[in-house]
């Protein structure tokens, strides 16, 4: 099982802070595409992904238990 976290406008669109999916064996890019389709997420090319709290490339493979987070352009400071 994998927890998927949403932040900022993605959270507003999805309507949930997190969901749980089965993503082991998929790539970050595949999960991103699935989420995009399921929730009709826009401008996903500007959204980064983190796996276990570290930025991950689209081609990185997800393992069971990994926490996935979608990181829209940040605006701290």
């Amino acid at each position, binding site marked *: 099982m994998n927890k998927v*976290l949403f*932040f*900022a*406008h993605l959270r*507003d669109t999805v309507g949930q802070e997190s969901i749980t999916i089965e993503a082991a064996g998929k790539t*970050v*890019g595949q999960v*991103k595409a699935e989420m995009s389709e399921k929730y009709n997420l826009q*401008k996903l*090319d*500007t*959204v*980064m*992904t*983190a796996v276990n*709290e*570290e*930025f*991950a*490339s*689209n*081609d990185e493979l997800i393992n069971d238990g990994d926490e996935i*987070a979608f*990181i*829209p*352009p*940040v*605006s*701290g*400071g």
Partner: protein
Amino acid sequence: MNFEIAKEPINTQSVIDKVVQREAGAITTFIGTVRELTKGKKTLYLVYDAYEPMAVKKLEQIGSEIETRWTGAKVAITHRVGKLDITDIAVVIAVSTPHRADSYEANRYAIERIKEIVPIWKKEHWEDGEEWIGNQLETKSYPTGKPEEEDLNE
């Protein structure tokens, strides 16, 4: 804990105290405050949200980058989350170094880097609406899905 996400108002002095060292001749601090007007539009308040454990890690990473790049530098950063009113403090960055030029440069590096890689977002609230602020120009994309080294040197 030199790198923190805070739910309560930030005490600037306590952040400064973390970087005091006998080898330092200079301490710079950057205090980011909530400005009332942005491009003529009046902000009522802001709400900051963070992916907290990752945000702390990324602040720590920025600290390591600075300590590698500027010899003898010591860094502390606290970023606030939650609802902030005008003039409230969103972030305090303190950097101490032996010599002053480094202290200004390293501090500036820290704030630019925060705006690049630390998962914190602000939502602006105006009289006529609200919006999550991202990369305002929407010119940035991440083809590989993560920030690249050159994103820093824009």
